[in-house]
C-alpha cells in the first residue's frame, strides 16, 4: 500500500458545469503523512476539487489516483473499498439529525464491521474522547453548538481509522477560539496518527497553523504548489494580494461604470 510517497495524484483534471469550465486541467500530487491545504478565493473550484477527490463527482477528463489506484473509472462497490480508507468532515458537519452523537459515530462501524455492541460502545467513546466530546454520547446534533458538531463530525470521520482525512472549510462559521481548537486537533491527528490530511479553506490564520504543503487555486487553475515557506516567500502579485488581504482593484472607468448600472 505504501508504494508511493504521494497519497493522491491528480493529472489533467478538467470539469465542466454545463458549458462553464470549473477546473481547467489541474495536475498535482499530495504528499503522504502531511497536511496539505487547498487554498483559494470563493468560486475558484476548491470545493469541486474536493468532491472529485472523494468520488462524489466524476471529472470530464483526467485522472485521480488514491494510493496509486485510479478512482475515476471505479464502480460504486469498488469505490466503497477506497472510501473505507478515507474520512470526510463536511462544512456543516453533516451529522444525521435523527440519530444521537454516539449512533452517528457508530454508523460507519456498524455498516462495515461485525463488532459486538460492547466493543462498539468502547470504540465510540474512544473516538469522542479523542475530539474532546466525552459525555456527549446521548445528545442529538441539534443540541450541540457549531464547533461541537464539527468535532462530532470529525469523530465520525475517524471512526474507521482512515489513512486520508478530508476537511471542507473546517473553520467556516466558527469563532476564532473554537477554530483554533479545531486547527490544534488537525495538527495532533497528523503528528500522532501520521494521517494524510487535506484541508480546503480560505482562512489564512488556519493555513499558517496547520499547513505543511499548500496548493493555491485561482479560477480553476493552480497558482502555486509548494511548502508553506515557499508560499510566504512568493512574490506573485495574486498570492501577495491574497496573503495581505487586499481587495481586487476597481478597474472601471466612470463611463464603464455608467454602462454597467444602465444594464448595457
Amino acid at each position: 500500500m505504501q508504494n508511493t510517497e504521494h497519497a493522491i495524484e491528480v493529472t489533467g483534471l478538467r470539469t465542466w458545469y454545463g458549458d462553464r469550465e470549473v477546473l481547467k486541467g489541474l495536475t498535482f500530487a499530495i504528499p503522504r503523512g502531511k497536511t496539505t491545504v487547498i487554498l483559494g478565493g470563493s468560486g475558484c473550484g476548491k470545493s469541486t476539487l474536493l468532491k472529485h477527490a472523494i468520488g462524489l463527482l466524476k471529472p470530464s477528463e483526467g485522472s485521480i489516483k488514491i494510493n496509486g489506484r485510479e478512482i475515476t473509472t471505479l464502480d460504486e462497490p469498488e469505490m466503497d473499498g477506497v472510501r473505507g480508507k478515507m474520512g470526510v468532515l463536511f462544512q456543516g458537519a453533516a451529522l444525521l439529525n435523527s440519530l444521537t452523537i454516539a449512533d452517528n459515530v457508530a454508523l460507519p462501524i456498524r455498516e462495515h464491521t461485525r463488532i459486538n455492541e460492547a466493543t462498539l460502545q468502547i470504540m465510540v467513546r474512544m473516538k469522542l474522547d479523542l475530539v474532546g466530546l466525552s459525555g456527549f454520547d446521548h445528545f442529538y446534533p441539534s443540541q450541540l453548538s457549531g464547533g461541537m458538531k464539527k468535532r462530532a463530525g470529525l469523530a465520525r470521520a475517524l471512526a474507521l481509522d482512515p489513512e486520508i482525512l478530508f476537511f471542507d472549510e473546517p473553520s467556516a462559521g466558527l469563532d476564532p477560539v473554537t477554530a483554533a481548537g479545531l486547527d490544534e486537533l488537525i495538527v495532533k491527528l497528523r503528528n500522532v496518527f501520521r494521517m494524510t490530511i487535506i484541508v480546503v479553506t480560505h482562512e489564512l490564520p488556519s493555513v499558517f497553523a496547520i499547513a505543511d504543503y499548500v496548493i493555491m487555486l485561482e479560477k480553476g487553475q493552480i497558482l502555486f504548489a509548494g511548502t508553506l515557506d515557499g508560499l510566504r516567500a512568493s512574490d506573485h502579485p495574486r498570492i501577495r494580494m491574497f496573503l495581505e488581504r487586499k481587495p481586487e482593484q476597481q478597474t472601471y472607468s466612470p463611463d464603464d461604470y455608467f454602462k454597467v448600472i444602465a444594464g448595457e
Partner: protein
Amino acid sequence: MAFTLRKDISDASRIINNSFYWTFISPFRGKPVRVRATIAEMVKAGYNSVPIVAVISFFVGIILALQAAYQLKRVGALIYVANLVGVSLTRELSPILTAIIVSGRSGSAFAAEIGSMKAAEEVDALVTMGINPIRFLVSPKLIALMVMVPALTMLSDVIGISGGFLLSVSVLDMHPYNYYQQTINALLVKDVFTGLIKAWAFGMVITLVGAYQGFKVEGGAEEVGRRTTSSVVASIFLVIIFDLFFTMLFYYFT
C-alpha cells in the same frame, strides 16, 4: 428543456431501479434491510394514520349510503344500498382515500426528510461512509408503505362499511340482519383482493415519488418546500393514473 426532461427521466429510472434492487435483491446478497428503521417507518406511516383514515372512511361510508338511498328509494330498492356501499368501498374508494391520505402525510414527509438531508450534505456524507443512501433511506420506507397502505385500506373497508350500516339501520330504518346479509352476499373475495392489490401499488408509487422529489433537491430550504409540494401533487396524480390502469385491467380480466 429537452435536456432537463431527459435528465429527469434518467434520474427517476435510476432511483426506481436502485430502490427495487436494494429492497428486493440485495437482502439475498448479504446486505439486509434495516429492520428497526422499517418498523419505525411503519409506525410513522401506518399506525399514526389510523385515526384520520378511520374518521374519513366512516364519514365516506355514511355519505355513500345517503347518496345511494337518494336514488334507490325511488325505485323501492333500498336494500341495494348495502351492495353499493360494500362494493364501491372495497373496490375503489378505500384504496384511493387511503392513498391520498398517505401521500399527504407520508409522501410529503419523505420528500422533506430526504430533501433536507440532501441540502445539508447528509446524503453526501452517507455516500462517503460507503452507505448507499437509497438502501439507508428509501428501502425501509418502501417496505413500510407496501405493508401499511394495504393494511390501512382493510381498516378503511371495515370502518366505511360500518358507517354505511349505522346510517342505514338508523336513518333508513333497515333491519340490521338484512343489511348484514345483503353485504355478505354482494361482496366477493376478488372485490376486496383487487382493492388491496391497488393499495399495494399505490404504496410503491407514493414512496418512489417522495424519494425522487427528495433526491432532486439541489439548493436550500426553499427548494425543499417546493419539492415537498410537488411530491404530493405528483403522487396523487400518479395514484389516479395507476387506479385507472388497474380498474381497466380488473374489469377485463377478473
